């Protein structure tokens, strides 16, 4: 996806279950840092929930969307082109919001997708 020589900027979204149930904070970042040509830029709201939450996302769409807004504004602010996470539900929510509302194209990727490019 990215040429080796090119610098790609990504930010990482901590999925709640990975972060708080499993206590995984550094491991995915370490993996990302090991990818050549990739620069990790931290966002302010990295640990904030994206607002997915399963049925919550459709039962309380207004709250879920407000949470996505906070998350995605923080992503866009970093100036990255990609947001990476290891939770596909979060990515569905984040991509869903970004494609509709983001002023510029920011794509979401699963950590495995990034690593599989190597």
């Amino acid at each position, binding site marked *: 996806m990215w040429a080796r020589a090119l610098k790609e900027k990504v930010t990482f979204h901590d999925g709640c279950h990975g972060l708080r149930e499993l206590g995984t904070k550094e491991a995915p970042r370490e993996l990302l840092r090991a990818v050549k040509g990739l620069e990790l830029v931290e966002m302010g709201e990295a640990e904030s929930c994206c*607002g997915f*939450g399963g049925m919550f996302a459709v039962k309380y*769409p*207004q*709250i879920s969307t*407000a949470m996505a807004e906070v998350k995605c504004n923080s992503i866009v602010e970093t100036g990255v082109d990609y947001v990476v996470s290891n939770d596909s539900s979060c990515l569905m929510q984040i991509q*869903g919001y970004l*494609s*509709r509302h983001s002023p510029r194209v920011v794509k979401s990727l699963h950590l495995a997708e990034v690593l599989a490019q190597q």
Partner: protein
Amino acid sequence: MINLQEPQEQFQHDADRTTADEPRRAAVRKALGNYQIARGKTENAFASWQHARDAAATIKYEGVNHLDQYLREFEEKFTARGGKVFWASNSAQAREYILNLARERGVKSIVKSKAMTSEEIHLNDALEKDGYHVIESDLGEFIQQLKHEPPYHFVFPCMHLKRDEISALFERELGSAKTDSPEELTMIARRVLRQHYINADMGISGGNFIVAETGMISITENEGNARLTTALPKIHVALIGIEKIVPRLADLSLFLPMLATAGTGQQLTCYNSMYGGPRLPGEVDGPEEFHVVLLDNHRTRLLADAEQRDALHCIRCGACLNVCPIFKNIGGHAYGTTYQGPIGSVITPHYRGLQDWKHLSGASSLCGACTEACPVKIDIHHHLLQNRRNAVAEKKVWWEKLIWFGFRHLMKRPWAYKLAIRLAPVGQLFHPFVYGTELDPVQSWTKTRDFPEAATQSFHDWWRERKGARK
């Protein structure tokens, strides 16, 4: 008959309104961002915040699981010094006791310091209906009282208001001049309040801890108003939930800094006072009568629930609200409860009925930020899950049942699952015709977010065909 759907509908409606108010959300986010920074620093002042949490949870476990013993120990020691203890099973009994007392003693004017229990039993309404003049002395509560609004947050009652809104409120209600200075605003309130302390013949407070060992109650505050409320009027009533018990005085050496840290990011609140009863012979100040009303009001119902009993460990620090993304986006009033935020969503169904208040447990992404922040290690977000389970076990929701029935059958049959995956791209061809409209089956998603495109190749197919796959 009460319409059972009402609180739920009201909640949806209020959440629609408050999530659309981005300036207010941004202000709350900023204030709580500052809290987070301050709290982070004070947490680091503990040798180990995590060990402190373990210790606190152990102490509260001990207290809550021996409530009978410790509450009686408190009563015995407190009454030995001339204090009075009243055991209120419910809000009506608590209100009656306080109203009777006011009536018998010919009370006219009442000054109050912060007490969420009094919000819980709607004490102000009852007192005012009987003709008493009641004034809140905590600055935030004072402002909310002038606004005729309940507290927005049980630790920061008016955190949602901006300075100019408070100034305008004071101009309107107190006739003061417009000002942008927080100090001046405080002085305006102080001038009004001082007079009331002197005139009041009854003081009402809450209490942060009940210490069994010494028969005392502990009140923590930042403004000194609770001290004046307890010291000046002749009669004092402290209205406290029974779960506020701690066994020993030494326990406060952990809980006072912990409450301050988790609550506001302070190392200690400005005033921490202990009260052991009325003024004794030879003492220069304090009330002549000191009553403690121990409030159950369905706390024992929670106590009977072994799975969620630890919710009674709560020291009402408000940390779970401060980190909650739901609270930050819908604000405190949308909950429609005395206790807002995650802990409110856990306990309100126990206090006020599961079917009426179960929606609050549903209105969570279960992100777990609350549980992580809780100083006494209440398993808050799992309790929300248990409330959901209990609500469904008690009363099924037909359309949810239908969905899970379909889902279960699909997931149990690989052929059906594979078929559904193959049909998804075909089905999606028709989606644009109804996208985002009432006919769209996923409208509540597509109204605000794009729906992901179904992949043309399933993961299964890709896995089978990938290079080097074993055939």
